[in-house]
């Protein structure tokens, strides 16, 4: 009976494999210890009683799902800030490389470059401000015990902030892509060019990581809502 119960609990928690494994071990220890403490010993009735005292597997999984979702939102907030930092490092490295290689842009493109730099700067600093705001917001909230309306509101607000951060960062990376294209225009393929391309790839990867975090948070929120509803 206990193995079946543990199996169903682990199945309910399948959305988070490591949590599922760790909860299964923890609960297994609890249930066998409780059975050992039963006056009737390890009988079918004792196992039944212990499982009944422990509670419905789905209801307990729903409570774990809320804790796991809260953890995921915090991770997404931290990821947003780290991704912005990674983006900044890649951007600065590319600019330093241009300076070291004494690469300059053609006169005809200077006006366009000035405009794109302006967009890039505003978009990037907007992502910094919103990203830090999102992290501060989520870290200042208590981890809820249930998927209550207050937590749903908190999630909506945080998702909005994360999406705004990602959108601003996407604009910044696109602007960087345009600037890099202007810079590399007409140049012969060489090892030096790959440095600029590599730093652009890092920036794109950073945005990709943030989008993956936002998506996984949204999916987890949906699965938690479904688990709580049933």
């Amino acid at each position, binding site marked *: 009976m206990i193995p079946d119960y543990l199996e169903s609990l682990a199945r309910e928690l399948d959305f988070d494999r490591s949590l599922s494994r760790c909860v299964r071990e*923890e*609960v297994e*220890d609890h249930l066998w210890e409780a059975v050992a403490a039963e006056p009737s010993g390890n009988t079918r009735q004792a196992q039944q009683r212990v499982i009944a005292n*422990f509670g419905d597997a789905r209801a*307990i999984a729903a409570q*774990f799902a809320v804790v796991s979702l809260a953890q995921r939102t915090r991770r997404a907030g931290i990821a947003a800030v780290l991704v912005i930092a990674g983006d900044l490092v890649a951007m600065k490295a590319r600019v330093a490389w241009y300076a070291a290689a004494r690469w300059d842009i053609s006169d005809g493109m200077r006006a366009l470059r000035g405009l794109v730099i302006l967009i890039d700067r505003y978009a990037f600093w907007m992502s910094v401000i919103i990203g830090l705001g999102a992290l501060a917001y989520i870290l200042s909230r208590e981890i809820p*015990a249930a998927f209550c309306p207050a937590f749903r509101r908190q999630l909506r607000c945080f998702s909005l902030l994360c999406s705004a951060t990602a959108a601003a960062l996407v604009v910044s990376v696109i602007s960087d892509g345009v600037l890099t294209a202007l810079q590399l225009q007409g140049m012969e393929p060489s090892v030096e060019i790959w440095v600029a391309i590599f730093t652009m790839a890092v920036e794109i990867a950073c945005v990709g990581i943030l989008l993956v975090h936002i998506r996984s948070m949204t999916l987890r929120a949906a699965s938690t809502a479904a688990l709580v509803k049933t």
Partner: protein
Amino acid sequence: MLKGHLDMIVLAALAAAGSAHGYAVIEEIKRRSGGAFDLPEGTIYPALHRLEQAGMLRSTWTTADSGRRRRVYTLTRTGTRALVERRAVWKQFSDAIGGLLGGNRPRETPA
């Protein structure tokens, strides 16, 4: 009522028991409350995980005498502070209710 105070109950049980695994926390709650709190035992575990995530508890895995892996929780400094705060709020609340029901005037707090 009990659900709203679950965190305080778990923190208090852990403060009394020192380091303890989930089963021992539940036993401590039952023992100290005289069996008054009859909540599904499984609800303690999400609470323990939540409190750990909030930095109020720390956990380590050990091996029990039975050979099974066991997760043991300990209060952190943040947890101890949180418990002190919650105890104070509870005391204030309990004094106020005591005053209302029993006619004892709650102690006035200095201005």
